[in-house]
C-alpha cells in the first residue's frame, strides 16, 4: 500500500485549478444549498450550478420526469431563477466555500449567449463558465447550437471574446460525429469541453396513450447512457488537446475511474446525486483509495490510460 500522501487528485481546466476531478453536473445540484446538508461542499472539485439565462424561465409544464430502465428522462425546460437572482440570492452562499463555482448558462440566440457571458464574466465568485449548447428540451431550431458545426463555431467564438474565465462548452451526444463537434469548440476557443448532455428520448404511457412527459420528448440520463458517454469521451480525448469533462451515468467511484481512463480530466455527477445525495464525496474517497491501492501517484497518470 502506497503512502497516504502520494495520491494527488489535482487537475486543471484551463486556468481553473481543482483540488480533485469531481464536480456536480448542471441541473442536478440546484445551487448547492439543498445538498450542503448531506455533503461538505468544500470537498468537491467544483460546483456547477443549474443552467441560467438572462431572464428567469418558467420551464416546461409537468409532468417533467419519467423513469426509464436504469435511467430517467427529464424535460425541465431550463427553468431557472435568472442571472440576477442567482447573483443576489444564491452566489453568496456558494462563495463561502473553497470550491470553485462554475456557472452553466444558455441563451436563445447568439446575441443572448454573448450578453449573458459578458455579464457573468464581471461577477466575483464565478470561476468558470459552462455554456450549454445541447439541451434537448428547447424549442425546435435551438438544437442547431449543438448540432450544426458552423453555428457551434460562431456561438462559441463570440462568447469566447466576452470572457477570460475558463470557458467550457457542453456538447450534445445527439450527433453523428462527437469528435468533430468537440474540435469545432476547441477551434472556437473553448478551454474544455464537457459531455455528455442528455440523449433525446421519449416514453409513452400505454394506458393513457400520452407521452410520459408533457414536452413529449426529454433528455435521457443516468447509468443507462454510460456506455455511450464513455465512448464519446474517449473519442474526444483522442482528438483534442484541451481537457474533456466526462459525465453520463456516474454513480460510483468505479464509474468515474472508467471515464478518467477513457480520457476525462474531470468528471461530473448528475443523476447520481438523486440516487444518493452523498454520491460526489463517496466518489472522491473511492478514487483516492483506488489510486492508493494501485500505487497511482497522480490522477494525471490515470487519465486516458485505457489500454487499447
Amino acid at each position, binding site marked *: 500500500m502506497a503512502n497516504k500522501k502520494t495520491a494527488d487528485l489535482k487537475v486543471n481546466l484551463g486556468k481553473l485549478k481543482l483540488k480533485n476531478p469531481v464536480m456536480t453536473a448542471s441541473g442536478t445540484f440546484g445551487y448547492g444549498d439543498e445538498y450542503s446538508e448531506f455533503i461538505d461542499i468544500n470537498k468537491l472539485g467544483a460546483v456547477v450550478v443549474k443552467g441560467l439565462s438572462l431572464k428567469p424561465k418558467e*420551464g416546461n409544464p*409537468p409532468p417533467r*420526469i419519467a423513469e426509464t430502465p436504469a435511467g430517467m428522462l427529464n424535460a425541465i425546460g431550463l427553468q431557472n431563477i435568472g442571472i440576477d437572482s442567482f447573483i443576489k440570492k444564491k452566489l453568496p452562499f456558494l462563495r463561502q466555500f473553497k470550491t470553485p463555482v462554475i456557472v452553466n448558462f444558455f441563451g436563445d440566440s447568439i446575441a443572448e449567449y454573448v450578453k449573458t457571458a459578458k455579464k457573468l464574466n464581471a461577477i466575483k465568485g464565478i470561476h468558470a463558465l459552462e455554456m450549454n449548447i445541447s439541451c434537448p428540451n428547447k424549442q425546435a431550431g435551438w438544437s442547431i447550437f449543438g448540432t450544426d458545426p458552423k453555428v457551434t463555431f460562431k456561438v462559441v467564438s463570440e462568447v469566447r471574446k466576452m470572457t477570460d474565465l475558463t470557458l467550457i462548452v457542453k456538447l450534445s451526444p445527439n450527433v453523428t460525429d462527437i469528435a468533430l463537434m468537440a474540435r469545432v469548440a476547441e477551434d472556437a476557443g473553448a478551454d474544455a469541453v464537457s459531455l455528455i448532455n442528455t440523449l433525446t428520448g421519449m416514453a409513452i404511457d400505454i394506458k393513457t396513450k400520452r407521452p410520459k412527459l408533457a414536452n413529449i420528448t426529454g433528455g435521457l440520463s443516468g447509468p443507462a447512457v454510460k456506455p455511450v458517454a464513455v465512448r464519446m469521451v474517449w473519442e474526444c480525448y483522442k482528438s483534442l488537446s484541451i481537457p474533456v469533462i466526462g459525465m453520463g451515468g456516474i454513480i460510483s467511484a468505479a464509474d468515474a475511474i472508467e471515464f478518467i481512463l477513457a480520457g476525462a480530466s474531470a468528471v461530473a455527477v448528475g443523476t447520481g446525486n*438523486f440516487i444518493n445525495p452523498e454520491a460526489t464525496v463517496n466518489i472522491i474517497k473511492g478514487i483516492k483509495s483506488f489510486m492508493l491501492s494501485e500505487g497511482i501517484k497522480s490522477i494525471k497518470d490515470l487519465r486516458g490510460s485505457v489500454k487499447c
Partner: protein
Amino acid sequence: MSRLFKASVSENKELIKNHYLLTLNPLKKIKKPEPGQFFMLSVDKGLDPLLKRPLSIHRLTGGNLQFLYRVVGSGTNILSEKKTGDILELIGPLGKGFPFKKTQKNIILVAGGLGIAPIFALAETLAKIPPPAPPVLLFQGARTEDEVLCIDKLKSIGIDPIISTDNGTLGEKGNIVSVLKKYLTRHSLPVNRYILYACGPEPMLKSLSSLAIKHKLKGYIALEQHMACGLGTCLGCVVNTIDGYKRVCKEGPVFPIEKIVW
C-alpha cells in the same frame, strides 16, 4: 441527524390484495416526520428501478416508521417482496406537512383511497393534542368495502369515519366529494369555523377543490408528482399554482387548496 439513512424491514404485511403495511426500523436516529411529510425509499440494489420512491409517513410506532402503500408498478412490486431483515436506504423526512398546529378550527379530514396513508398520520397526531383539542370529522372514500383501510386503527384513536364507497358496499354509495358536499349543505356548516385537510387521487382533489372554493372552505391538500431527487434540486416535480410552478417535494407535498391551478 442526516436525512439519508438505512432502515431494516421489521414487517411487510399484505393487508388486502396489493396493499401493504411496511414497518421499518431506522438503523440510526432520524428526524421525526410530521404528518404529510414523506420519505424517498430505495427498493432495489440494482440500477433498475433507479430512482427512490416517495411514500408518505403513515405512522410512527416506537421509533419505527410505517408506510401504507399500494402495488402499482415495478418499484412497489419489488418493495412488496421485501422480507424482515432486508435493508432499505431512505431519505427523509421531506417536504412540508399539514400545517395544523395552531388551528382553532373544526377539522375536516378527507381521505380518498390510499389518501388515508398520510391522513391517518394527521388524525393520530390530532388525537394526541391535549384538550381542548379541535373536533375532527373524517370522510373516507374507497372503491369497495375491502379497500376501506385503517378502520380499526381509526376507532382506536376515537375516530368514526364517514365512509363512502363507489359501489356502495360500505357506507354511502358514491364518491367522497359528493358525500362531503351533501354533508356541508345538509348541516349548513359555518365554513369559516372549519378547515379541510385532504389527500387522494387527483380527480378527487380536483373536484374537492372546486367544492372548497365554491363554499369558501379553507384547507390543505397533499399532492403527488413523479420525483427524482425529493430535495428540490431537479425541478422535476412541479405543479402549477397561482404563484407559478412549485415543487411538490419542497414547497409541498401539502399546498393550500386554493393555490392549485388544475
